[in-house]
């Protein structure tokens, strides 16, 4: 059964400041949403609320159609934040296999092997190296491999391609596209176009924000 992500009247505070309010949208399986806006407009905050890492002030995030019922929507989400969540001291292989077995797969799909995932990001054959040896761009791509080794229907991506070159950018767009084709949902905050057909949510940086275009 295809899932859908529904957001209703969402608002969030940081400290005492209201960052955004009354954001509502619905994403069906296979759809993507791009969150744009100037710095400080609350893109990252929105994504962290969606990932269940920040409590919403009002409103709610729901994932419909998930079988079996889950405790919290965040359990169906991948969150790729500003940090890579990989240990420099461990090899890429050790990092990825840890996350693969720690996260497990959500119902309705399964992650691919570690070597296959690094191949998919164009970095096959170096997974035996310590993560700290890689360049910033390579590290980012290896962090993206996490999205592939453990299956989650919803991808939440915060500036995913900031450190990437044009070629890796296209590669990643291809991965997102494939994810959408198989019934996934993607939400990305980004300055650059992601390279996939998507709705756009423009955050203006003032309370009263957010038009789905």
């Amino acid at each position, binding site marked *: 059964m295809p899932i859908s992500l529904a957001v209703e009247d969402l608002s969030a505070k940081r400290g005492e400041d209201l960052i955004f309010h009354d954001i509502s949208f619905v994403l069906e399986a296979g759809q993507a949403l791009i969150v744009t806006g100037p710095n400080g407009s609350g893109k990252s905050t929105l994504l962290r609320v969606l990932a269940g890492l920040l409590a919403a002030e009002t409103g709610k995030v729901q994932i419909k159609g998930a079988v079996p019922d889950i405790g919290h929507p965040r359990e169906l989400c991948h969150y790729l934040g500003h940090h890579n969540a990989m240990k420099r001291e461990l090899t890429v292989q050790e990092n990825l296999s840890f996350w693969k077995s720690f996260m497990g797969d959500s119902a309705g799909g399964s992650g691919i092997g570690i070597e296959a995932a690094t191949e998919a990001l*164009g*970095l096959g*054959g*170096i997974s035996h*190296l310590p993560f700290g*040896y890689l*360049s910033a761009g390579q590290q980012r791509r290896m962090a993206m491999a996490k999205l592939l080794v453990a299956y989650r229907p919803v991808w939440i991506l915060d500036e995913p391609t900031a450190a990437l070159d044009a070629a*890796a950018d296209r590669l990643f767009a291809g991965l997102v596209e494939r994810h959408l084709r198989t019934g996934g949902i993607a939400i990305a905050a980004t300055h650059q176009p992601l390279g996939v057909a998507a709705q756009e949510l423009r955050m203006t940086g003032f309370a009263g924000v957010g038009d789905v275009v």
Partner: protein
Amino acid sequence: MSENSLAIRKFSDLANPTRFLALAGRVLPWFAGLTVLLFAIGLYLSFTTEGDYQQGETVRIMYVHVPAAWLSMMCYSVMALSALGTLVWRHPLADVAVRAAAPIGASFTFLALVTGSLWGKPMWGTWWVWDARLTSVFVLFLMYLGLIALNRAMDEPGKAAKVSAVLILVGFVNIPIIKFSVEWWNTLHQPASVLRLGGSAIDPEFLAPLLVMAVAFTMLFFTLHIAAMRNEIWRRRVTSMRRQAARSAGREV
């Protein structure tokens, strides 16, 4: 001035890692063979000479204990020299020598402590006394372990080299002070029971095996040290090759 710099250039020429590897490959089998031979002679002598009439068989521990204790100090001196080499001449191998020597020095010190305490149990009735000499060796052991921990904590060998060189030299300057203060501390508290070994002249009966063992231990140290330096150079090359591999990966995408 120019003469000086010329000498240094030649000196560092000799210390080119590649040439060191070639030299180490040629020298190591001989060193190892000599070490085994000396140990065979030394151990034979140690077990065939008479036991002491007071201490009995336990006196044979001395043949391991004394050389180990001696080596523990020599190793630190080698490290201090190498540290000087790192800081003053920026010698490429000096830092390798420091890194390779620390675990060996710690092992010899540990051996000296263990044999000392095995010897102490039948002699003094206790495994350990806070005698001035024992205590300084123990402090030396702690210093070795601290250096190893420092080396391990830094993943960049170049940066670690200078920092640990500084620490080694501070330690080296400190050793006489530590030694002096420990002696003062101990004699202040219990002047009567300070136990001294080898206070009386050593009988030639003991001297021969002791000397052979001391030379054997020294050879063992050099064998291990050269081998460890070779491993360290190889380890660094492997690391730089792996970094190279990381850089070149994914270029063609």
